[in-house]
C-alpha cells in the first residue's frame, strides 16, 4: 500500500515532482561543481603562479661573490666554481620530481661583439632541451621556466650555434632575426630577438654548449633555475632541519616546501647550494591562500543558497498537498504514516535529483577546468557519497517544517479548502 501510494504520487503529480526535482538537481549540480572547483583551484592556481618563473636557485657550494649590477657581470668570467652539466638530469630523480616543472641552467660569459669589440654578456642556457633520466624522458629549458620571455623570429635549437639577441642590444647593433653576428671571433646566426623586460634585453642568449665553448669549460654551469610546485610555508617549514628529530624530519622532508625541495636538490647535485628565491617563493603562499579562501567562502555561500532554494521548493511542493493530507487523515491514516510517506517521497526525489545533479555538476566542473585552466578538474570519488548525503539531508530538513505543518492541519479545514 505504502509503495503504491508512493508510486501513484509520482505518476499522477508529474509537474510538481518535476519542479521539486529540478530545484534539487540544480542545487546539487551547483554544489558539486563549486566543491570540485574549490578543492582543485589550489593546484590550478599554483601552476599558474609558476608563470612568475623559477622559485629555486641552485649555485655552486663554494661560490665566489657575484659582482653584478643590473644584470651586467663585472667579474672576470673564469672566476669561481661551476656545477657539472652532467649532474642536472638528477634533478628529476629527487623525491618531489613530479613537482619540478622545469629547470634552466645558466652560464654567463663575457664576450666581445663584431668588429667594434663591444663588450657584453652571453648567457648559455637550455631552450627546450630533451633530457633523459633513467627511463624518463623530459623537455626542459627557459621556454617553461621563463614564460614571459618573448621572441621575434624563432627559438634556436639547443644543439645549434644560433643565438638570440636582447631587444636593446639588437637595436644598438642594428641587427634583426635572420642576420649574422660575430661573437668572440665566430659568426653566429641570429635566430630571433628576445624581449624580457629584464637584464637579458642587453645580452646575447645562446645554447649552453656555445657558452661552454667560449669559456673553454665543457660541462660548466654557473647556476640552475628550478621551477617547482611548492606548498605554502608554515611553522614546520620555517624550522631549521638540523634541529629536527627523526619523525618530524621525515614529515618535513616529505612535504613539498620550497625549503625541503631545495634540500633535496642539494642532495641530488654534488657540491651545490640550493635556495628559494624569496621574491617568488614567499609570495606564492599569500596569493594562493587568498584565492583558495575566496573560492571556499563562495562555495559555502553557494551551498547555503542551494540548500535554501531546495528547502523552499520542497516546502512549496508539500504545502500544495494539504487536501491530500486531509483526505488521508480522514480515511484514518496516522500522523506517522503521512509523515513517512512524505519523507519517503523527499528521499526518493533527493536521490534522483542528487544523482542527476552530481553528474551535471561534474560535467560543469570539467567544462570550467577545460575552458579556464586548459586542464582537467579531478572529481574525487569520495565527493559522490558526500554530495548524496548532503542532498538527502538538505531535502529532509527543507521538508521537515512543511511536513509538520501539513500533518498538524485539521483535516476538516483542509478538505474544505480553507488554507
Amino acid at each position, binding site marked *: 500500500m505504502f509503495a503504491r501510494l508512493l508510486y501513484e504520487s509520482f505518476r499522477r503529480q508529474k509537474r510538481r515532482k518535476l519542479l521539486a526535482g529540478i530545484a534539487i538537481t*540544480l542545487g546539487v549540480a551547483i554544489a558539486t561543481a563549486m566543491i570540485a572547483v574549490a578543492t582543485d583551484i589550489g593546484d590550478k592556481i599554483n601552476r599558474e603562479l609558476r608563470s612568475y618563473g623559477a622559485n629555486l636557485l641552485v649555485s655552486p657550494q663554494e661560490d665566489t*661573490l657575484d659582482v653584478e649590477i643590473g644584470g651586467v657581470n663585472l667579474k672576470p668570467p673564469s672566476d669561481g666554481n661551476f656545477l657539472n652539466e652532467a649532474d642536472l638530469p638528477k634533478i628529476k630523480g629527487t623525491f618531489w620530481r613530479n613537482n619540478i616543472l622545469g629547470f634552466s641552467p645558466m652560464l654567463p660569459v663575457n664576450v666581445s661583439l663584431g668588429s667594434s669589440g663591444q663588450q657584453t654578456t652571453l648567457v648559455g642556457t637550455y631552450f627546450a632541451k630533451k633530457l633523459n633520466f633513467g627511463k624518463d624522458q623530459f623537455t626542459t629549458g627557459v621556454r617553461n621556466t621563463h614564460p614571459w620571455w618573448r621572441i621575434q623570429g624563432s627559438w634556436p635549437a639547443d644543439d645549434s650555434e644560433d643565438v638570440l639577441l636582447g631587444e636593446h642590444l639588437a637595436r644598438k647593433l642594428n641587427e634583426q632575426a635572420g642576420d649574422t653576428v660575430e661573437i668572440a671571433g665566430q659568426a653566429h646566426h641570429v635566430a630571433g630577438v628576445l624581449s624580457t623586460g629584464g637584464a637579458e634585453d642587453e645580452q646575447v642568449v645562446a645554447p649552453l654548449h656555445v657558452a661552454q665553448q667560449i669559456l673553454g669549460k665543457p660541462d660548466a654551469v654557473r647556476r640552475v633555475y628550478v621551477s617547482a610546485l611548492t606548498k605554502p610555508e608554515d611553522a614546520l617549514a620555517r624550522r631549521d632541519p638540523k634541529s629536527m628529530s627523526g619523525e618530524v624530519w621525515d614529515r618535513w622532508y616529505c612535504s613539498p616546501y620550497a625549503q625541503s625541495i631545495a634540500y633535496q636538490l642539494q642532495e641530488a647535485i654534488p657540491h651545490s647550494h640550493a635556495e628559494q628565491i624569496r621574491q617568488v617563493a614567499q609570495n606564492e603562499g599569500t596569493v594562493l591562500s587568498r584565492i583558495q579562501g575566496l573560492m571556499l567562502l563562495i562555495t559555502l555561500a553557494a551551498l547555503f*543558497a542551494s540548500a535554501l532554494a531546495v528547502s523552499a521548493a520542497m516546502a512549496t511542493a508539500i504545502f500544495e498537498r494539504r487536501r491530500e493530507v486531509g483526505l488521508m487523515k480522514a480515511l484514518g491514516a496516522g500522523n506517522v504514516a503521512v509523515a513517512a510517506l512524505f519523507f519517503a517521497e523527499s528521499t526518493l526525489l533527493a536521490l534522483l535529483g542528487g544523482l542527476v545533479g552530481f553528474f551535471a555538476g561534474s560535467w560543469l566542473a570539467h567544462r570550467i577546468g577545460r575552458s579556464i585552466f586548459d586542464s582537467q578538474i579531478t572529481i574525487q570519488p569520495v565527493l559522490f557519497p558526500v554530495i548524496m548525503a548532503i542532498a538527502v539531508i538538505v531535502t529532509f530538513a527543507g521538508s521537515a517544517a512543511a511536513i509538520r505543518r501539513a500533518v498538524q492541519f485539521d483535516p476538516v479545514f483542509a478538505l474544505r479548502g480553507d488554507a
Partner: protein
Amino acid sequence: MSTVPRTPQSVAERRAAAPHASMFLRMLLRAAVVRRGRAASALLAMVVAAAVATAMMNLYVDVQAKLRKEFRSYGANVVVVGKDGAFLPPDAISKVESVLGGRGMAVPFAYVVARTPAGQSVVVAGTDFERVQRLDRWWSVSAWPSATGEALVGMRALPVVSPERKPFDLSFQGHTVHLTPTGTLQTGAAEDSRVYLPMSDFAAWTGVQPSTIEVAANGSSEELNAVVNRLAQTFPNADVRPVRQIVEGEARVLGKTRATLYAAATLIILTAALCVLATLTGWVFDRRRDFAIMKALGASERLISGFFAAEAAALGAVGALLGFVIGIGIAAWIGRVNFNAVVVPRLSVLPIVLAGSIAVALLSAIVPMSLLRRVQPAIILKGE
C-alpha cells in the same frame, strides 16, 4: 471616518465612491497578508536569490582590486634606470611619487663596486631602508640598520666583508668608510651578494647618485601602462620599463581567478534565478482558484493579468531590496574573513539586482497565467 455611522449602506457608498485603484491595492495587500505562509516561502526564495546575486556581483567587482593589492607584495612592477648607468636627477623620487599620486610606492637604488682591504670586489648599494621594507616584503632581514655607519650585509657577502661580524672597511676610489654589520639580508637572489647602506651615508662616501628607481604601481594593466608612459615623459634620459616577469605573472593569475569567479557567479546566479522561477510558478499556479473566482465575478483578462503581474513585481522588488542588504552583508563578511579588508558596498549593483528580480518574478507570473487563461473558470472552481 468615525463621523459616518458604519451601516452597510454607508460602507457600500464609501467604497463605491473610492477610486478604483484602492480595490486593486487592497487585493494585493490582502493576498500577501492572508496567505502569508505561501507568500513568505516565495519571498524567501526571492531574497536568497537576490542576496546571492548581490554578493557575487559585488565580489566580482571588488575582489580584483583586493587581489591586485595582494600581488603588490611581489614588489616593483616598473623600473626606471638611467640610460647607460647615468644618474637620475636628485628630485627623481619625488617626481615619481607625484606621477603615482599615492597609488603605489618607489624606492631609489644607487650602486658602486667597492673593494675590501683584501682586494675583493663587492657591490655596495645605497637605498632608503624605510621604503625598501614596504616594497620588498620578502627580504628576510635579521635587523634593519637605523644609525649612520650601519650596514645591511647580504648572506653571501658576509663571509667576504666581515666573516666574524665585526666592523669592516670598504674603499671606493680612494675613499674608505668604516661600517658596522647591523643585520644580514637573505633573498635568494642577487641582493645576497651585496652590502646595503642608507642613502645619505652612501652619497657622503661615494658621491654617487641613484641610477635606479624601482616602482610598484597599483591598478590594472591599463593604469600601469599610463604610469609607464608618464614616467617615460618625466624622465627622457632614462629607460622606463615594466617588469614583465611580475606584470605578466599577475595578469595571468588574475585572469584565471577572474574567469573562475565569473563562471561561479554566472552558475550561482542562474541557479538561483531558476529556483525562484520554479517556486514562483508553483505559487501562481496554486492560486488558480483566485484567478477563476475573479474571472467568474467578471474581472477582465487585463485586470487579472495586471493584478498577478503587479503582485509578482512587488514580490520581486521587496525580495530584491531585502536580498541586496543581506548580499552586501555576505560580501562584507567574505572580504573581512579572506582579505582582512572591507568590501565596499556597490550601489551600482542594486538596479541590476532589482531589474533582474522583477524580470524573473514577472516571467514566473506570465507562464502560468498564459496556461490558465485558456481554461474555463468553472473547471478550476470544480477543483480539477
